[in-house]
C-alpha cells in the first residue's frame, strides 16, 4: 500500500519535470506514427486490386505455383492473422523474402541502406550548413529595404533553385560537370568525387528554401520588440544578430522548415536514379516495376522510419532551442 | 425586457493537469432593464461568463435562466453580444448591411425589402447614415465599426445584450461616442445589459449595478452607488484605488498597499489558491494579519453580507486596508 503511494508520488514527481513530460509525449507520438506507418505498409499490399502474386509472377505462371507462393506468403490466412504475423516477423527483424531474387529482404536492405544513408546525411548537413549563415547574412544585409538589388538576386535565385526538382538539378549538374567539363564521374559510387554531384543535387533545393525561410524569419525577428530592447541596451550589432536574433529565427525556421528536411529522405529516390546510385532509391523503383512487393513494403517502411527519425531530431532541436516549447503542450 | 440570471454557473476548460476552472460557481442576476457592470482583471473569467451566456462556451455546472426559464442548450438564444475588437467582429468580406441582416431572426420581418428597411432603421438607431449599408468594414473607422456591431446585436431582437470590453480597443477620442451611445440606447430601449470591462470608471458611468469578479468568483455585487461609495471587499477597494481620478498623486499614494501585498505574485488560474482566492494578495488577509488563517482554509460566501461581499472580514470596518500600511512606502531601489 505504502509502496504504491510512494511510487505514485515518484511518478507524480517525474510528471512534474517538463523534460520527462516532453519525452513521454514525444515518444507516444512516435509510437503512434510508427504504428500508422507499419499498418500502412501492411495494408498497401492488400489494397492492390487483384492478386499481387499473380501480378508479380505474370499471367503465364501455372496456377499451382501461384497457389504455393500465396500459401508461403500466408496470403490465404485471415487478414487479422496476416497482420499479427507481419508484426511478429517485423519484431524479429524478418522482412520476408524477395519474390524476384529469393533473397531475404533484410539482406537487400542491409546492402543498400548505407549508400542511401550516406547520401542523405551529407546532403542534410550541407543544406543546414549553407542555408543558416546565408539566410542570416541576407536578412541583415537587406533589412528595412536596404540593398534592393541583392535582395532581388537572392530571392529570384532561391525561388528558381527551389522550384527545380532534385532530379532536374541532377541532370543539369551531370550535363555541366560530367558531360561538358568532364570533372566528375557521371554515375556510380566510386571514390569521394562521385559523392559531389549527388549530394549537391540533393541539397541545393532544400538549402535554398531553408535559406529563404531563415531570411524571412530573421527579418520578422528583427522587427520584434526584444530586438529593440537589445538595441536600447546599445549592444554591438554582431551581438544583437548572433545572440538575440539568430536563436529566435532558428526556432521559427525549424518549425517551418522541419518537414523539408524530412522530405530530403524521399528526395534520394530521384537523385539515386539519375546517378545510378546503388541505394534504396533505385531498389524501390525497380521493385515497384517488377512488382516485388515484399521489397517495396520493406523499403517504404525504412524510408518512413527515416522520415520519422528526422522529425524527431527536429523536434528535440526545437525543444532545446526554445525553452517555451517543453512547457507548451501540443 | 427580461431578467438574466446565472445560478451557480461553472465553466471548466481542458482536463487532467491542464484543467482550469475559469468560472467557479458564479451566481449573478441582471435585473430587467438594468445595466450590470462586471469588472475584473484579465483572467478573472468575466469574458468566459459572457461567452457561456450566449452559448459559445459550454457550461460545466449550474444553470443560466432567462426570466426564470433555462436557456436552450443550442441554437439561437434571445441574447446578443458585442465584442471587444471591432476589427475582428465584422466579416471583412461582407457588407455591413448583410452582416446586420444575418442577425435578424428568420420571420421577424417579411421579405427582402422588409429586411432592408430594418437594416436602415438599425443603422439610424446607432447614428450611422442608412446608406452606409453597402459599405465594407474596411471603409469604416473603429468607432463606426463598433456601432455597426451594436446594430447587429440589436438586430437579433435580444432580451439581453452583453457588451464585452467594447471600448478598450478604441482610441480615447472615440470611446466617449460609444459610451454615450450605450447610455442612450439603454435609456430609449430599456435594454437589460451585462457590461464587461476592466475599467471601474467606465463601469461607474454606465451601470446601475456593479459586480466584481476575481479568479472565477464574484466577490462583490450591489447597486453601483453602494459598491463605489462603500466597497466591502478588499479587492474592490484595490480596484477603486487604482481607478482614474482627477488630480496628481504623490508617489507614496500611488501604491498604498503594504509591501508584502504589492510584491505578491498574481495567482495562476490553473492553480487557484485555497480558501479565499484573494488571500495571497489581500491587505486584510493572512499576509498582513497573521491571525487570519481562516482566509487560507475556508472560501467566504457573500450571503447576508452587505453587497454580498465574499470576505470573511468584510464587516469589520476597523480592519480596512486604509489603516497605515505596515510595509511603508516602497523603499529606495538604488540602495
Amino acid at each position, binding site marked *: 500500500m505504502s509502496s504504491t503511494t510512494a511510487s505514485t508520488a515518484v511518478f507524480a514527481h517525474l510528471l512534474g519535470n517538463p523534460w520527462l513530460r516532453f519525452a513521454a509525449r514525444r515518444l507516444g507520438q512516435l509510437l503512434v*506514427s510508427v504504428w*500508422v506507418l507499419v499498418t500502412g505498409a501492411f495494408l498497401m499490399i492488400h489494397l*492492390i486490386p487483384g492478386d499481387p502474386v499473380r501480378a508479380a509472377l505474370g499471367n503465364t505462371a501455372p496456377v499451382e505455383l501461384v497457389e504455393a507462393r500465396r500459401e508461403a506468403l500466408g496470403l490465404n490466412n485471415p487478414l487479422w492473422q496476416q497482420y499479427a504475423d507481419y508484426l511478429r516477423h517485423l519484431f524479429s527483424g524478418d522482412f520476408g523474402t524477395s519474390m524476384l531474387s529469393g533473397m531475404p529482404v533484410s539482406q537487400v536492405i542491409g546492402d543498400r541502406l548505407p549508400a542511401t544513408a550516406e547520401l542523405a546525411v551529407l546532403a542534410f548537413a550541407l543544406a543546414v550548413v549553407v542555408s543558416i549563415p546565408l539566410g542570416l547574412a541576407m536578412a541583415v544585409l537587406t*533589412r*528595412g*529595404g536596404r540593398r534592393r538589388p541583392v535582395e532581388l538576386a537572392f530571392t529570384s535565385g532561391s525561388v528558381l533553385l527551389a522550384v527545380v*526538382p532534385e*532530379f*532536374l538539378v541532377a*541532370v*543539369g549538374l551531370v*550535363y555541366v560537370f560530367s558531360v561538358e567539363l568532364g570533372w566528375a564521374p557521371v554515375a556510380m559510387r566510386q571514390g569521394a568525387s562521385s559523392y559531389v554531384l549527388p549530394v549537391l543535387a540533393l541539397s541545393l533545393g532544400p538549402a535554398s528554401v531553408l535559406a529563404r525561410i531563415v531570411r524571412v524569419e530573421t527579418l520578422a525577428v528583427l522587427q*520584434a*520588440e*526584444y530586438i529593440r*530592447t537589445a538595441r*536600447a*541596451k546599445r549592444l554591438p550589432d554582431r551581438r544583437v544578430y548572433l545572440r538575440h536574433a539568430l536563436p529566435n529565427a532558428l526556432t521559427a525556421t525549424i518549425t517551418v522548415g522541419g518537414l523539408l528536411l*524530412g522530405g530530403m529522405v*524521399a528526395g534520394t529516390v530521384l537523385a539515386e536514379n539519375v546517378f545510378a546510385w546503388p541505394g534504396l532509391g533505385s531498389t524501390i*523503383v525497380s521493385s*515497384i516495376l517488377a512488382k516485388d512487393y515484399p521489397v517495396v513494403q520493406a523499403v517504404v517502411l525504412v524510408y518512413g522510419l527515416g522520415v520519422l527519425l528526422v522529425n524527431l531530431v527536429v523536434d528535440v532541436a526545437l525543444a532545446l532551442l*526554445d*525553452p517555451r516549447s517543453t512547457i507548451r503542450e501540443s | 425586457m427580461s431578467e438574466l440570471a446565472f445560478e451557480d454557473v461553472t465553466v471548466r476548460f481542458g482536463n487532467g493537469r491542464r484543467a482550469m476552472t475559469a468560472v467557479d460557481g458564479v451566481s449573478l442576476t441582471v435585473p430587467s432593464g438594468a445595466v450590470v457592470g462586471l469588472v475584473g482583471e*484579465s483572467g478573472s473569467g468575466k469574458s468566459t461568463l459572457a461567452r457561456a451566456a450566449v452559448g*459559445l462556451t459550454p457550461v460545466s455546472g449550474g444553470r443560466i435562466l432567462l426570466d426564470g426559464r433555462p436557456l436552450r442548450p443550442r441554437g439561437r438564444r434571445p441574447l446578443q453580444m458585442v465584442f471587444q475588437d471591432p476589427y475582428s467582429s465584422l*466579416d471583412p*468580406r*461582407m457588407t455591413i448591411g448583410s452582416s446586420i441582416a444575418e*442577425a435578424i431572426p428568420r420571420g421577424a420581418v417579411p421579405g427582402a425589402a422588409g429586411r432592408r428597411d430594418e437594416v436602415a432603421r438599425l443603422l439610424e438607431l446607432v*447614428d450611422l447614415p442608412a446608406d452606409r449599408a453597402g459599405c465594407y468594414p474596411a471603409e469604416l473607422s473603429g*468607432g*463606426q465599426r463598433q456601432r455597426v456591431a451594436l446594430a447587429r446585436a440589436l438586430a437579433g431582437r435580444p432580451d439581453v445584450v452583453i457588451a464585452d470590453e467594447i471600448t478598450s480597443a478604441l*482610441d*480615447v*477620442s472615440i*470611446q*466617449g*461616442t460609444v459610451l*454615450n451611445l450605450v447610455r442612450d440606447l439603454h435609456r430609449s430601449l430599456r435594454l437589460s445589459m451585462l457590461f464587461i470591462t476592466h475599467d471601474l*470608471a*467606465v463601469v*461607474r*458611468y454606465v451601470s446601475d449595478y456593479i459586480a466584481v469578479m476575481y479568479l472565477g468568483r464574484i466577490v462583490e455585487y450591489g447597486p453601483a452607488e453602494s459598491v463605489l461609495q462603500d466597497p466591502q471587499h478588499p479587492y474592490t477597494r*484595490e480596484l477603486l484605488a*487604482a*481607478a*482614474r481620478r482627477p*488630480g*496628481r*498623486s504623490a*508617489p507614496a499614494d500611488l501604491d498604498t*498597499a503594504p509591501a508584502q501585498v*504589492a510584491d505578491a505574485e*498574481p495567482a495562476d488560474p490553473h492553480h487557484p489558491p485555497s480558501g479565499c482566492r484573494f488571500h495571497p494578495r489581500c491587505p486584510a488577509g493572512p499576509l498582513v494579519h497573521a491571525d487570519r488563517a481562516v482566509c487560507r482554509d475556508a472560501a467566504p460566501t457573500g450571503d447576508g453580507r452587505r453587497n454580498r461581499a465574499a470576505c470573511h472580514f468584510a464587516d469589520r470596518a476597523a480592519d480596512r486596508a486604509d489603516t497605515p500600511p505596515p510595509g511603508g*512606502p516602497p*523603499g529606495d*531601489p*538604488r*540602495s
Partner: protein
Amino acid sequence: MTSRARWAGVLRTPVGAAAAVLLGAVLLLAVLAPLLWGGRADEVDTARILQPASAQHWAGTDNLGRDIFFRVLVATRTSVQLALLATALGVAVGLLLGTAPLLLGPRLGRLVTAAVNIAVAFPGLLLALSFAVIFGAGASGAVPAIGLAIAPGFARLTQTLSATVAGRDFVAAARIAGVGRFRVLLRHVLPNIAEPLLVNATMAAGGSLLAFAGLSFLGLGVQAPGYDWGRLLGEGLNGIYLNPAAALVPGVAVVLAGLAFNLVGEAAAKAVGPRTPTGTVRGDSFEDGPPAPVDRTGQSEAVLVVEDLKVSFGTVTPVRGVGFTLRRGEAVGIVGESGSGKSLTALAVAQLIEQPGRVAARRLDFLGDDLLRTPPRARPRLLGTSLAMVFQDPTTSFNPVQRIGRQLAEVAEQHLGDRRGPALARAVDRLRAVRIPGAARRARQFPHEFSGGMRQRAMIGMGLMGEPKLIIADEPTTALDVTVQRQVLALLAAVRAADDVAMLLISHDIGVVEQVCDRVLVMYAGRIVEDLPAAQLRDGARHPYTRALLGAVPDLATDRDQPLVVIPGRPADPAAPPPGCAFAPRCPLADDHCVRADPALLDDGLGGRVACWHAGELPEPVRAGAAVLSAATEGEGR
C-alpha cells in the same frame, strides 16, 4: 481595395506579369501543340535513329528516329493535363479533410486533425510512391497517387486558415445569431480563406507537374507509347553523352512550366498576403510649417534638449517638429492618440528609429552631448548606461529564449566591462532593487515564467544596470492590469525620487500622465499642441484638444447624468497633414483661419505653451450639451 483590383495589381508587377505571360504560353501550348505538331512528333524515321541536335532536328531524334523537339512540345498537353487533374483531386480531398473539423465538431474534428498531422509528416514523394504501388504504374495510377500525396498538406493549410477565421469574433457573432455550422463555413469561413487557398493550389499545380515528371522519369508515370516530359527526360538521360539536348530540352520545359505556376502563385501571394499600409505619396510635406519654437528655459540643468525634431518614413512625416526640454529629476508626460507621433518621438530621442525611418532635428542633446553629431562609436556607452528604456508590452520586450538574469547582465558586461560572474551578481542586485521576490532564483528563469507586472519590473531593473539619468517609458502600464499598473507607476516614481532621474512618460491616458508627471505635452498629428504643468491640466488647459481629452474618458468624478465630451471625426492621418491646424476638422472652435493657417506653439507667459488660434476660448454653450452627440457622430460618419 477590392480583391479584383488586388489581383489586377498582381499583373502590373514585373514578376507577376512575366509569370502570367509564361503561364498563358504554357496553357496555350497545351491546347494547340498536339493539333499543330501531333503528326510530326509521331513520325518514325528509321534512317535517322538517335541523331544528335541539328538544324533539322533541334533536339535530335529518339530511338525510332522521331523528332524530340516536337515531342516535347506535344507532350505539354499530357503533362499539364495530368498535373491539373492530380491537383484538382488533391485540392478536393484536402478541402474536405481541412474543413472537416469545423463541420464535425471538436471531437471527431480532433481525430481528423491528428490523422492529417501524421500524414503531413511523410514527404509527398514517399506517399506518391506508396500510392503508385497500390494504383499500379501508369498515368491512371499516378494521378490519384500524386493527388492523394498533396492532399494532406493542403488539408493542413485549410485547417489552420479556417481555424484562424473561425476563432474570430465575427464567426462567434454569426453563431450567436443562430447561423448553422455549414452556413458559417460557406458564408464566413471559405470567402475569407479562398485567396490564400487559391494561391496555394496554383503552387500545388506547379508542384504536381514536377512530381509527375519525377514519377514518369522513374518509369512509374506515363507508359509507352504515351509520353510526357518526365518520360522524354528519362529516355534522354540514357544518351546524355551522345545527345545532351534530348535530356535538356524536356528538362527546360518542365522547369519553365513549373516556374510559371509557382511564380504566379508567389506574385499572387504577395498581393493577397498581409499588406503593410504604405503611406500615400503627397507632394507638399512638412517643410513649410511654422518653425518649432525654442524652449530655452534652464538649459544648464537640462538632461535632454530637443529642438525641431522630425521623424519621417519615405514621404510620410509622423513627427513634424517637436521641441521640449527635460531637466534633471523632472517627469514629463507626452499624451496623444494612436498616430499622434508620441511613441516615435520617444524612439527618436532614444536613437532607436530604424531604417527606412529618418530622424532630423535642429538640436538633440542628451547630457550636453549632441546625439546627432557624436560619432556613433562614442555613443553606446553613454546611452547604454545613462538612458533607460521601458517599453509597452513586457511580454514581447524580453528575448524569449534567454534567461532574465543574462539579459540584464549583458548590459554590465558590455558597458561596464564586468566579467560574467559580477555582471550576473549585479543583475540579481538590480532585480532585488525593483522588488522582485526571490531575485536570485528568478534571474535564472525565462521571461515566460514571469507575470506581466514582474516582467515590467525586470525591465525597469534592466535600465538600472547603469546609472540612468533619464528613463523613457513608452506606455509602460498599458498592457498591465489596473492594480498592477499602480505598482509599476509607484516603482518608477520611487526610482526617480531616489536619484533625481528625469523621466519621459508616453501614454494615451491623460489620467496616468496627470498623476505622475510634473509637466504634460499634448501631441496631435506629429506636433506638440500644448505644454503645461500637470497641476494646471484641469483648470488651465487652453487647447480645445487637451480639454476634450480630459472629458472624453470617464473618471471617478465624471457626472453620470451628462454625456461624455465627444471629439468628432477620426484622428488625423499622418500621411496627409492638412495645411492649417491639424485639429481644425474636429475642433468646435475652428474657423476659416484655422483651416488655412497652422498655429505655432507659443509661450503663453503662464509657464505653458499652446498652439491654437483660439487658445483659452470656450465653445458656444449649445455645443457642450446633448447636441454634441448628434453633431459628433455625423462628423465621424463623414
